[in-house]
């Protein structure tokens, strides 16, 4: 069963085309890197998948269904900015998620909050930027969703917490679910990915398994990306 399918998917903002006729299939059980320079359409694609945006043309489906309240119950989305009420502490957030999502695993969230030593009583507005990001990721990954959409999940956290987060991703996902991670920190996520998608100016210019890319280019994904998207000419 394919977790996500896009056919001829386009999104325009006025006359600007953010995504241009994209065809994409995401199978279940994969961890996929959505990679591309700033403004290449990564966030637009993620927002279309969780119905924050509606396609201008073409179609996107999640487990065979068009994005709807029903798909929202199986898609766990981590936006690239703070999205939770600042006055809430961990306990408030857990109650909020329990109320909203049937697939929320409270025990999993409590365990991760404990492992990362986050103070249960501290409101989010008093937390550092990195701690807030960790907490939001914990809430997102504590759902038992079919599709996780993580928009820049590790940008603001220190390298040790980054390792912890990647471990969390590896150990928590199950074979029916897929995870799409958009990031610029390719070297950090490379070994965790099954597949990589390179987006450039609203087009998919490469979609393959990471091992195949390494085999064909003879380079790491990170190096290959730097060459494909180099910002200057010799």
């Amino acid at each position, binding site marked *: 069963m394919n977790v996500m399918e896009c056919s001829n998917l386009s999104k325009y903002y006025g006359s600007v085309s953010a995504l241009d006729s994209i065809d994409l299939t995401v199978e279940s*059980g*994969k*961890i996929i890197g959505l990679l591309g320079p700033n403004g290449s359409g990564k966030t637009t694609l993620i927002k279309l998948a969780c119905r924050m945006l509606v396609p201008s043309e073409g179609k996107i489906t999640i487990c065979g269904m068009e994005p709807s309240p029903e798909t929202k119950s199986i898609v766990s989305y981590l936006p690239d900015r703070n999205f939770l009420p600042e006055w809430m502490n961990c306990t408030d957030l857990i109650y909020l998620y329990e109320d909203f999502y049937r697939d929320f695993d409270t025990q999993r969230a409590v365990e991760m909050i404990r492992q990362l030593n986050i103070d249960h009583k501290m409101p989010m507005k008093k937390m550092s930027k990195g701690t807030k990001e960790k907490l939001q990721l914990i809430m997102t990954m504590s759902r038992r969703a079919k599709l996780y959409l993580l928009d820049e999940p590790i940008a603001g956290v220190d390298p040790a917490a980054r*390792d912890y987060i*990647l*471990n969390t991703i*590896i*150990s928590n996902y199950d074979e029916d679910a897929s995870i799409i991670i958009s990031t610029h920190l390719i070297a950090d996520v490379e*070994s*965790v*990915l*099954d597949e990589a998608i390179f987006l450039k100016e609203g087009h998919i210019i490469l979609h393959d398994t*990471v*091992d*195949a890319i*390494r*085999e064909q280019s*003879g*380079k*790491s994904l*990170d*190096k290959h990306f730097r060459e494909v998207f180099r910002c200057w000419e010799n």
Partner: protein
Amino acid sequence: MTWTFESDKPIYGQIVERIKFRIVKGEYPPGSRIPSVRELALEAGVNPNTVQRAYAELESEGVLYTERTNGKFVVNDSGLLNQLKQTLSRNYIEDLFQKLTDLGLTKEEIIAAVLAEKE
């Protein structure tokens, strides 16, 4: 601590090498059970599907076998162990010779240097 990988080769191939090394070293003795896919994925910091692929490769090479519901085991065969040991050491020696030849050493100089290092 997660493993570090060379950047120019597929990751699953490097996991295959690493496991063979552990088998020869005696860390996973013949007949013993090796870590589950998820355990090794966490240890190495890689995707479980990549470990799965490495295990499949080792199984097709006859190094591992699956016992249904029980996990994967190292084949109980000392001949295979010797063979692995030879292949691995040959690879290291080839690598050493390649690097030292690039530095301009002759075969005799390399042998002399290795002997001198041992003392």
